[in-house]
């Protein structure tokens, strides 16, 4: 693969293990079908009602307000005139699109009495959304879902994830404004390389579990070489590598592990239940010095749905639309399967998982 370069090449993304990059790329390229329909009560008189639906395959890691210009552009040609605003009246417009879709999947399962036919593929039902042209006086939304509000919400989630991982927000707030803007622009432009060039400065790395096994191209242990300063990477890395904002603990483990997925305080994870509250709690990467698995995590937080053996689980977990195996490590999920805001969103579906 083109991005599985060795550590001597410049740029942090090329120092990421190939498997990590692969999963991040898969998450980045994941899409879901959306069906956007204009509220028929609001269609201008005389418009062709047959053209009121717009279908789009939307990136999971993106946000609805970012899609609006594209939707409006297409619908404008057919139905709307320039003056109509176009507002998506969902309460959760600030959720990533993938989360909206998965949440809809699990909520739909709650009410469905007909199980999927055996042998059918994962549901590919589009998520149906209604676009409103007019903002009525009794608009219950606190904020118009503009790209600016969305960016603000995104930055807030990024900061929260940073805080959860390290107990401070120095990595995110230490980025220059152009990097903050760069993250958002690369989301808008859907550019994986641009995004990860900046994100790899703040997202955890997937270094090995053992803190003494830091790989070093010279073949020597990092403890034998001069102690790295907070801002430098291991001594013989390319000088073109971007540096990370300083870590809070200069006497901590070697730099290569300081940002490791297994040294975080807590993995940023939220659990979404159909018709239920959003659950969030501390998720340590290790439990009793062993990797914290998804199975353990679910048994701890939802003991009735995920009882200990010999009982069978009464539910399943979806992460980025994929039914996640119980052996998946929470730390790894945090580094590889998180959304663009750093959060691992686990949607719990009741009953058997869709095939």
């Amino acid at each position: 693969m083109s991005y599985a370069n060795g550590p001597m090449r410049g740029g942090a993304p090329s120092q990421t293990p190939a498997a990590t990059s692969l999963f991040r790329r898969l998450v980045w390229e994941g899409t879901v079908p959306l069906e956007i329909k204009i509220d028929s009560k609001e269609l201008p008189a005389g418009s062709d009602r047959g053209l009121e639906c717009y279908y789009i395959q939307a990136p999971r890691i993106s946000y609805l307000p970012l899609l609006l210009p594209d939707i409006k552009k297409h619908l404008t040609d057919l139905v709307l005139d320039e003056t109509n605003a176009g507002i998506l009246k969902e309460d959760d417009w600030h959720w990533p699109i993938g989360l909206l879709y998965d949440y809809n999947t699990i909520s739909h399962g709650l009410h469905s009495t007909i199980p999927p036919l055996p042998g059918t593929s994962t549901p590919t039902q589009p998520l149906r959304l209604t676009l409103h042209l007019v903002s009525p006086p009794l608009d219950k939304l606190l904020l118009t879902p503009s790209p600016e509000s969305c960016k603000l919400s995104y930055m807030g989630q990024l900061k929260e994830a940073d805080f959860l991982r390290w107990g401070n927000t120095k990595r995110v707030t230490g980025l220059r404004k152009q990097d903050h803007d760069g993250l958002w622009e690369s989301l808008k432009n859907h550019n994986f390389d641009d995004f990860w060039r900046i994100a790899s400065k703040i997202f955890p790395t997937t270094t090995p579990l053992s803190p003494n096994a830091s790989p070093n191209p010279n073949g020597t242990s990092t403890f034998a070489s001069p102690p790295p300063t907070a801002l430098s990477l291991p001594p013989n890395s390319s000088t073109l590598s971007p540096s990370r904002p300083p870590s809070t603990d200069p006497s901590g483990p070697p730099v290569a592990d300081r940002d490791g997925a297994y040294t975080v305080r807590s993995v940023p994870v939220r659990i979404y239940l159909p018709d239920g509250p959003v659950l969030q709690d501390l998720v340590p990467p290790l439990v009793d010095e062993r990797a914290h698995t998804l199975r353990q995590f679910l048994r701890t937080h939802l003991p009735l749905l995920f009882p200990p053996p010999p009982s069978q689980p009464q539910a399943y977990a979806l992460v980025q639309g994929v039914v996640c195996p119980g052996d998946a490590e929470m730390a790894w999920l945090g580094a590889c399967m998180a959304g663009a805001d750093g959060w691992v969103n686990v949607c719990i579906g009741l009953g058997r998982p869709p095939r």
Partner: protein
Amino acid sequence: MKAPSVLSRDEFNLAAEGFVRGSQRGTTRELDLRSTITDGWSWKKHSSFTHLCYLHRSRRTALVPEHDKETEYQDDMEDQIQSEFDASEAVVPELRVVTMQQYVAWSATYQLPGFYFTMHDASGTPVPLETIYRSAFFQKSRSMIAPPETTGIPAIFDRTQRDQSRLGGGDNAQFPVLAQGDHPVLGTPCWVFHPCETSAAIREILDELVGDGWTGSEGDLVRWLETWFMVLSSVVDLRL
């Protein structure tokens, strides 16, 4: 032992329940003279997930935004005419009764209580952020926080941090003190207020009050929450 600068979920739940019981009995310490801050709170928990709890109260108040207040009471005819032409600048041209739902809910991320609220007028329409900013509710902190229209973004930023953000510095540069968020238990959209340095301020106050005598008892936890209210009421007016 010294008082903690954060609270666990269980500690918050204990503190909140004790706080409500105390205020109902009228035994709240230190805040007796400002009982409107502690009045009317009820302790709620989620029907199925009983460890998810929060405090709630409802407040009805009349919004008299400061600059409109000055306009309203002008005696000079000329100024009155001028103020009519200035009406386009006034976000709320007349007295408006609003209902504020106030919540204190625990933030799993920051391990601290957060202040969440919504503000609606009589027809159920949410009050715009610019109006909230200009209301008496934020009177105390307006010198320190920038109005949303000058930042061009739908949030309220600490003015000092906002300037620093242009230089790319400051711990909270570009992150607001008030922005939209989801209620941690109800999931509904609210305004969320994260005053800067809350933890540090609480710690300082409690170090003065209890020193090394912190035991983590329910009484201590209630006192922690009362201190949190004190810190919050120094930036927003909870008497309303």
